[in-house]
């Protein structure tokens, strides 16, 4: 079938087409929902098929426009891209489902869904890009759409948070574009493969240019991925967005930039240059800071969504830690954490959104007793929290285990200790919530469970948390081959 070989662009194009058509449908809500979910489903099916193909045949490269590598744009789908693309398609589909069925927080769903479709398309394009400038274009689409799905809520706080996000994001984009310009200047190529080949010749001639380019890119991506200490925009932005946006932003958007940065590292720069520079040690230092600072700040929050947002800062640290440790198992842990954190953080944000919607309570200090009123919702929240802490049997345990083992492999015991400390801190702020919700004094708030259709996507995420916790072997081939891209 011809369409299957075209999957790398068709995934993006299907989502884009749906986004272009949605505004035309106007107020016909059922049509908008159908197009929205239909596009998500078809993208998911295409991604699944493409991942199988990548596992069977190895890397796919798709020359857009039929122009071969250095002249045209090549979409480069290796195992890492296939894995990321699958994570994005799966998690965004479930969040889209929630956005359709869940409580309505946005005045106009048609524009909201258009933006979500555009965001998903951009993320898919980003993780598969094989061309530096193409990557930049998708980064910009996703940045703009990510800011827009915060501002769409229209409250004072969300508009202010999104403006701050926009300013920092534009700074990051500036750095990125500057970095790309410098790399083009010293190589004359935009295709990542050719950049790597040319850099082996020209890097010694222009060392300072290359160094600055890498520094600018790390800062640019660091701002967008909320790497400590460039995370200042994240708590406000993620906690003031509509529920589905928070889940998308914390679950996927932040990680996509890490994926893009790592793809640049091994595709465009080459691991030799990456190993020569102290980038790894920078990652180690910053991610440790993120682990501790994110967790400590999360402890003192009273607003449930802000707590979850600070926890995201810490979890981004875990992923960077995996790439900083740079041993086989550490990278496997970091890559697995991209999936696991996407699932559990979306779960937590969606349940938190449902709780806020049903009770009107945002403050953790008023949660006591609510668990007995809404047992299903709080049970789902508890599952997400346990996975965050890393209780065996949940998804979070697996990635933390791999990270800790990877730290031992890399002869850096100290980071295993940091992971343990951070997990204990996680326990210290998640467990009191659950305990007070279920066993606290009786609440006076009249709260009821939401409709079953709202709980269905949440149940899906709960089952995924357990599924990836109990059968981690399912993702092993993808993750192991991804780690082999870095460690040979």
């Amino acid at each position, binding site marked *: 079938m011809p369409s299957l070989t*075209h999957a790398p662009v068709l995934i993006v194009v299907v989502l884009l087409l749906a986004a272009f058509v949605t505004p035309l449908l106007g107020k016909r809500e059922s049509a908008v929902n159908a197009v929205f979910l239909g596009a998500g489903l078809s993208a998911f099916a295409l991604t699944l098929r493409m991942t199988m193909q990548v596992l069977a045949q190895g890397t796919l490269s798709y020359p857009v426009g*039929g122009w071969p590598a250095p002249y045209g744009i090549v979409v480069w789908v290796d195992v890492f891209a296939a894995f990321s693309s699958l994570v994005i398609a799966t998690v965004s589909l479930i969040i889209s489902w929630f956005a359709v069925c869940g409580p309505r927080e946005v005045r106009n769903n048609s524009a909201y869904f258009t933006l979500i479709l555009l965001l998903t398309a951009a993320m898919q394009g980003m993780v598969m890009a094989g061309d530096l400038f193409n990557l930049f274009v998708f980064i910009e689409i996703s940045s703009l759409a990510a800011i827009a799905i915060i501002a769409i809520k229209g409250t004072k706080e969300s508009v202010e948070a999104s403006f701050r996000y926009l300013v920092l994001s534009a700074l990051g984009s500036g750095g990125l574009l500057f970095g790309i310009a410098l790399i083009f200047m010293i190589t004359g190529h935009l295709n990542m493969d050719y950049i790597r080949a040319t850099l082996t010749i020209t890097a010694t001639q222009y060392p300072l240019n290359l160094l600055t380019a890498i520094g600018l890119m790390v800062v640019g991506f660091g701002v967008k991925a909320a790497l400590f200490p460039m995370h200042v925009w994240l708590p406000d932005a993620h906690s003031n967005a509509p529920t589905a946006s928070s889940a998308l932003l914390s679950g996927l958007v932040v990680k996509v930039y890490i994926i893009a940065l790592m793809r640049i590292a091994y595709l465009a720069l080459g691991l030799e240059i990456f190993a020569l520079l102290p980038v790894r040690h920078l990652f180690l230092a910053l991610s440790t800071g993120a682990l501790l600072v994110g967790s400590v700040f999360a402890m003192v929050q009273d607003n449930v969504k802000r707590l979850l947002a600070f926890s995201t800062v810490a979890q981004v640290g875990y992923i960077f830690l995996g790439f900083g440790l740079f041993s086989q198992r550490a990278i496997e842990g970091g890559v697995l954490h991209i999936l696991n954190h996407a699932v559990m953080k979306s779960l937590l944000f969606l349940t938190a959104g449902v709780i806020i919607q049903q009770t009107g309570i945002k403050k953790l200090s008023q949660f006591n007793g609510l668990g007995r009123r809404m047992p299903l919702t709080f049970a789902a929240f508890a599952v997400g929290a346990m996975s965050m802490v890393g209780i065996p049997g949940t998804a979070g345990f697996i990635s933390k285990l791999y990270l800790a083992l990877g730290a031992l492999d890399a002869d850096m015991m100290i980071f295993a200790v940091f992971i343990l400390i951070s997990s204990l801190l996680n326990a210290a702020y998640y467990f009191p919530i659950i305990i007070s919700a279920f066993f606290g004094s009786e609440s006076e708030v009249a709260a009821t469970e939401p409709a079953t259709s709202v709980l269905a996507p949440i149940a899906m995420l709960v089952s995924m948390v357990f599924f990836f916790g109990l059968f981690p072997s399912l993702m092993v081939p993808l993750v192991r081959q991804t780690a082999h891209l870095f460690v040979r």
Partner: protein
Amino acid sequence: MHDMILEMLGRVLIPATQLFGAYILFHGHLSPGGGFSGGTIIGASFIFYSLVYRFTAKKHRLKHETSLLFEVGGALIYVGAGLVGILAGRHFLTNQGVFPIGEPGRLWSSGMILLVTLGIGAKVAGTVFKLFQELLEGGAEPDGHH
């Protein structure tokens, strides 16, 4: 409010601007210019039109649907041109061998490039005008318009 001078100027300048924009659009593959510049010029003529009539006369007002149609139409032309490549058994956004390329240097040449330039032109004209309109009307307190 009605401004005689503006209106007379507009009568001359608006068609001239649009003609110039169309020229830039159609010669995108032959001379400096193309979809983005031509589209912006045409969009500017719409903006001038709005300024001349100052949003007073409702019948003179360009509707939001119109600019939206321009937008979406342009984008769909682009994606459609890309899909033609796949349907023809080649790659997404293939020009050579799918569209008639013609003789370089002639107006009707370069296949997909001309088509897509026109699509982009429509899209950009729609975007420029719509952004202007939204920012202008959004600045005022919502007056329950339409």
